[in-house]
């Protein structure tokens, strides 16, 4: 296999794996956040702000992988 085909395949596989890890992480975080909000409804505002902040952190890691895969997928 020449290098160009390897680059294209690895771009797809890499981004898929990164998306899978991100989805699992955010799903776990969101489920714990909903549990916490159901236990104590007066803390909903604080929990919601912290949850959105943590989601942005986890999503940033998937986007590091996206940048690398974009560089690989547009090679000539």
């Amino acid at each position, binding site marked *: 296999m020449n290098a160009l085909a390897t680059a294209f395949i690895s771009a797809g596989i890499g981004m898929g794996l990164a998306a899978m890890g991100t989805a699992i992480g955010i799903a776990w975080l969101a489920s714990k956040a909903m549990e916490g909000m159901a236990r104590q409804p007066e803390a909903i505002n604080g929990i919601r702000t912290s949850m959105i902040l943590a989601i942005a952190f986890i*999503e*940033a890691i998937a*986007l590091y992988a*996206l940048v690398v895969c974009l560089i690989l*997928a547009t090679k000539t």
Partner: protein
Amino acid sequence: MNELENLGKIVYWHLTLGKLDLSITSLVISLWLATAAVFMFFFLVSRRLKQVPGKLQGVAEVMVLFLRDEVAGQIKDNRSAWLPFIIALFFFVLANNLIGLIPGLAPATSNVNVTATLAVMVFLIVQIASIKKNGLKGYCKSFLPEGIPIIIAVLMLPVEIISQLAKPFSLTIRLFANIFAGHAVIFTLISLIFLFKNYFIIPLPLLGNVCILAFEIFVAFIQAFIFTYLSSMYIASALEGH
């Protein structure tokens, strides 16, 4: 991605200063439009401030009060000196993210140079604030927590330096990739219509386009908030003096 990169290269006026290329492209136009929009928004709000706020003043009050209490609330000392910077940063990033939803304009933050400039600016402000607060000796001491044996201190020094350098890098990539990925998805959906070469396929990509545009508004607000929150967290941790 090559077609997307051409969006910032539609040159309206060539302008070079020696070897620097300062030509006016469409990204420069959208940067100016975003600045003008933020300026006009606050100018109209602050003309007649009422005790019971009207609609425009209400919107501005909600956002500014949220920034003052939640985001800049992390800075303990001299908070009112840092507040204009935090508010300006938030509204600048927000306006630049939202301008890209108008068809024909590109968001300025979808270019990695713009976000890198903002992140380097925040990084320099954090380091200089830390030096001014703790002095030069205290700044160098803040890399090594005290009370640890010398072997671990030698290992921890590169880790601390790398983690300080990774902060503006992660700020850059997070903002750039979120806004750029949104536009790449819109571009791919619209280009589906041209790939199928059929008129009956039009409603489906357009429906997906509407959903992605609604999500992009949400992402614009969230990314501006995240950028500002992390910047104020770094400033607060640099000012507290370890």
